[in-house]
């Protein structure tokens, strides 16, 4: 009976909207960032002006990536809204290399047409320009799309501003109980939504490759289980609830299978669950702890954590099973690895002189680099364009999210206003 009530509570709590915005603080700047000015967009036509300051959202995105240095509005001598109004010499004097200008036009009740241009200040030329229709509720996402276009045009790789982040929060309530939440927010921390809440632990959120579903671990009913839930539908499915551990779900690149950890055989081993025929295949068979599987982008192999050598290290195994090869050799503790989108790097947690930090390792050369500076950093996850890694760290005793560029030069913190934030997973690109 208690179990039924609990499950009902979890069910009712699904899709409740708990608003707790993330705020972003840049903790370090970077040399060699591209100077760019995003001029406030102009407004054409009658009616109410849009509530979202598009230029501000674009500016913040570019700044946050660490690859751009944006010019404050107070330094701008003029505020052009099309290339015809631009005095290029004024911007050259400010040391600005690129300029973004644009304007918004009302096209009806709650609909807009946004025009913007990306300009090369030194050549006095347009690099690209778009006219995008949008609605009042999509203004922020349109701004992120514009930031993506600018990023790709100037740097040659797609921007990841239109993506989302899933994460776990834990809030201690007045009665001493914990409320654990599984949340999703825009990559800039805005629009957070809680999609599951529970009084029991929730763990290990993982986006499906199409960005439509999240797999996670829930301890509802006093026992771990792996669940898959539609991010937008709220519909959920229990995948495994065997005796012992049901944990660490990881989607195959084609979205048809989940690699996961089960200890039904007596100790934690890696299994692959086929979502189409519901068949389970055992990948590792070892008396040690084998856990935290992650697929290679080509779907041919998995990396996982194992203490078969005495201490936890990263191993790689074929997705069909067989002999596992050890991948990490530096430091005595390496865990929770995942591949970069191009498959060339691994990110994982490493023990670095008594601290737990985020590292990347080049799979070709075997060279490892520590990227973070915390004491208890964990759960690294690559941005879908491979430029940044989001991870969990501590600010005092509180868990917060942080992001670091893959070269380790730019670090920033995303702080939730209340509660303990952890286990971020960066979504794939929007399809």
């Amino acid at each position, binding site marked *: 009976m208690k179990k039924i009530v609990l499950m009902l509570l979890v069910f009712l709590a699904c899709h409740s909207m708990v608003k707790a915005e993330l705020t972003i603080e840049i903790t370090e700047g970077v040399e060699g960032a591209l100077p760019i000015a995003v001029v406030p967009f102009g407004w054409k036509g009658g009616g109410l002006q849009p509530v979202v300051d598009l230029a501000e959202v674009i500016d913040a995105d570019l700044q946050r990536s660490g690859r751009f240095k944006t010019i404050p509005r107070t330094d701008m001598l003029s505020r052009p809204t099309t290339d015809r109004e631009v005095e290029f010499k004024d911007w050259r004097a400010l040391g600005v290399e690129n300029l973004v200008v644009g304007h918004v036009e009302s096209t009806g009740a709650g609909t807009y047409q946004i025009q913007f241009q990306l300009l090369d200040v030194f050549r006095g030329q347009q690099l690209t320009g778009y006219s995008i229709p949008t609605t009042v509720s999509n203004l922020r996402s349109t701004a992120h799309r514009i930031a993506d276009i600018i990023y790709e045009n100037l740097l040659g790789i797609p921007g990841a501003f239109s993506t989302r982040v899933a994460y776990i929060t834990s809030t*201690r309530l007045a009665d*001493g*109980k*914990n409320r654990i939440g599984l949340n999703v927010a825009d990559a800039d921390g805005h629009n957070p939504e809680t999609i599951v809440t529970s009084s029991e*632990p929730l*763990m*290990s959120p993982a986006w499906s490759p199409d960005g439509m579903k999240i797999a996670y671990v829930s*301890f509802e009913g*006093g*026992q*771990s289980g792996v669940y898959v839930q539609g991010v937008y539908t709220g519909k959920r499915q229990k995948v495994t609830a065997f005796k*012992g*551990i049901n*944990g*660490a779900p990881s989607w195959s690149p084609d979205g048809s299978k989940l690699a996961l*950890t089960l*200890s039904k055989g007596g*100790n*934690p081993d890696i299994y692959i669950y086929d979502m189409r025929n519901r068949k389970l295949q055992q990948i590792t068979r070892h008396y040690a*702890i084998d*856990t*935290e599987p992650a697929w290679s982008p080509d779907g041919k192999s998995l990396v996982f*954590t194992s*203490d078969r050598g005495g*201490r*936890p290290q990263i191993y790689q195994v074929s997705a069909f099973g067989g002999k596992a090869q050890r991948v990490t050799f530096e430091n005595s*503790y390496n*865990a*929770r690895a995942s591949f970069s989108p191009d498959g060339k790097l691994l990110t994982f*947690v490493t*023990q670095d002189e008594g601290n*737990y930090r985020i590292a990347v390792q080049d799979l070709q050369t075997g060279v490892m680099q520590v990227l973070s500076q915390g*004491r*208890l950093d*964990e*759960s690294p996850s690559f941005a879908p364009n491979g430029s940044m890694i989001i991870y969990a760290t*501590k600010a005092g*005793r509180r868990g917060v999210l942080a992001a670091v560029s893959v070269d380790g030069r730019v670090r920033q913190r995303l702080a939730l206003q209340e509660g303990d934030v*952890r*286990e971020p997973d960066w979504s794939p690109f929007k399809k």
Partner: protein
Amino acid sequence: MKKVLSMSATIILSLLLMIGCSSTPTTEGGAEVSEQSTGAGSEMAAGSEASTSAASQGEAWYGDPLENPNSLLATRVIYFDYDQSVVRSDYLEVIQAHADYLAANPQAVVRLEGHADERGSREYNLGLGENRANSVRSLMMAQGVADNQMVVVSYGEERPAAFENTDEAMALNRRVELVY
């Protein structure tokens, strides 16, 4: 709830230290305990409201032996060393006492909840917590406890008993809780 838990953990720990201080040399003490507990167990099996004698304090207790604050059965938390799942020798007599109780009460079921401190990755810690609970389970099975009397659940680092960032707090979180 968490506060109560961490407080009771502290009480149990200090109790444990008291027991540890007053106990006779290890090998002899161990043998003594197992005999006494076995005795208490057979009385229980006979179905009477047994009087069990505690290992070290030796005061009589009338009622459910699980409720006896002076009994080794009052120790419900077993602590572990960092990244270790081997039961420390100072807990063997506690496990013996619980094993004897369970063997004598085949209808009794205990939940062995394994936990880890917050260092390292969460899913690995889930494995570590389970290893710890399984270590306790194996020792109990060797003492005659039936498999179906024990339920192993690992919470990893998800349910800390202490919340500080200190070595002491982390030591309190590396544990197996015996929940009847």
